[in-house]
């Protein structure tokens, strides 16, 4: 195996788990996530000569390719939803995210997962990258090639939707609890 190929494999393959995690939530399917990860690695391999090791390593670069591949898939499938609202900071930050204090967030992972799945792809990608806890807003902006204001705007909307879905879930459970009583 040529030296460059070895170098690519040793750099890229340790990130398969992380790529799969993101791909799984983006595609909502195990099978498609595997395809997306493989497509990402193959494209990264082809473009490896253009890669410059930055201080954060290869993972953001791979995630950037994964995001582009995913968007290409969406465009091909003509499933890409267009954001119908302004994405400016002003429009996003009108209402703050307020999480009901009585929500038991330690036991609502399944509901959070469902709520993430319900997000539009553009919001989902930002929320998934945010959820990994590995990247700052600036780094997410770099991965997605969008301004940091767009990241904050999408994250704000995404987070509000999660909070709204959880609140709704909690409200339904309370009603169900009362009915049982």
């Amino acid at each position: 195996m040529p030296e460059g190929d070895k170098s690519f494999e040793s750099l890229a393959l340790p990130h398969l788990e992380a790529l799969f995690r993101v791909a799984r939530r983006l595609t909502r399917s195990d099978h498609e996530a595997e395809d997306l990860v493989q497509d990402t690695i193959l494209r990264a391999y082809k473009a490896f000569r253009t890669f410059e090791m930055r201080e954060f390593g290869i993972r953001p670069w791979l995630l950037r390719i994964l995001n582009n591949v995913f968007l290409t898939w969406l465009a091909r499938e003509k499933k890409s939803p267009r954001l119908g609202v302004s994405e400016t900071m002003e429009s996003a930050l009108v209402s703050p995210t307020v999480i009901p204090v009585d929500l038991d967030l330690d036991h609502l992972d399944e509901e959070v997962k469902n709520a993430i799945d319900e997000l539009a792809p553009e919001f989902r990608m930002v929320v998934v990258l945010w959820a990994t806890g590995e990247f700052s807003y600036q780094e997410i902006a770099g991965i997605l090639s969008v301004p940091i204001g767009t990241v904050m705007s999408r994250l704000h909307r995404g987070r509000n939707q999660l909070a709204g879905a959880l609140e709704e879930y909690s409200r339904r459970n309370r009603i169900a609890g009362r009915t049982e009583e």
Partner: protein
Amino acid sequence: MTCRDAQLHLPLVADREPVSAIAPDVLAHVAECGTCLAQVRSLERLRASARRAISVAAPAHLSGRVRSALASQRRSAPHTLRWVVRVGAVAAAVMLALLGGSSLLQPEVRELVPLRAAQLVSVHDLCAVSNPHDPRRVGRGDPSLVTRKLHRDYGFVACVPNLSRDGFRLDGLCTCVQAGDARTFHAHYRPELLGTPIVSVFSIQGSAKFTDAPLRRGSHFGPRVYRYASIAGASFASWTEDSGTYAVVARIPMDDLIRLADGITVGDARSPESAGSIAR
């Protein structure tokens, strides 16, 4: 600062964004305000919950699958290089001929894949009986998805057209045709209507030379030149395009078969992005 003013900035605090991004009076307010601090803690727990929600282990076979695809990709790269060398060699020979006379001109280097058209017809008949089989596990669903998978996994633009408008659905894909080292794929289609014969579309990597039958040459509506013949009662037509050879076989009249082939486009699976533009 009031709680209302601070609320918009609480996610930045919860997400541990750089302090320079957060107004100093927000931090001071959160340190003193129990309500806002509780909201920050809730936001932190929401993120922790989201992190747990996206945690999923990659399947054990993923690493092997990706390594195998990379190896396949590497194998196809030297093939491109060989073509570059060949083209260079031909160009050099032409230059030498122009400079030193035609006696120096070497015959064109071409790698032909020897094949028998009758073999394709046999595979067509055999797969019609033993169908369905899908040893490559590329699926039977959307033909464009299958084509993309083949291109991605094998680096070869196989032809798996969508024939639904002609009344056929993709029923499987096999590699029953043996053609030396050349990759071959046989896509077979079932008719939507009973009583209609099945259709096969073969993709062979490289230029195939059919050694067994005197094939006629001709075109139909478009620029594509077909080599065609009636073999064992089946209509057979093949053409070379884009460094691959493609053939269709069905037990239908030759005119109908060529009309069907004319509607097939090769190369739909190619990725529109160049390597350099992928990570832009």
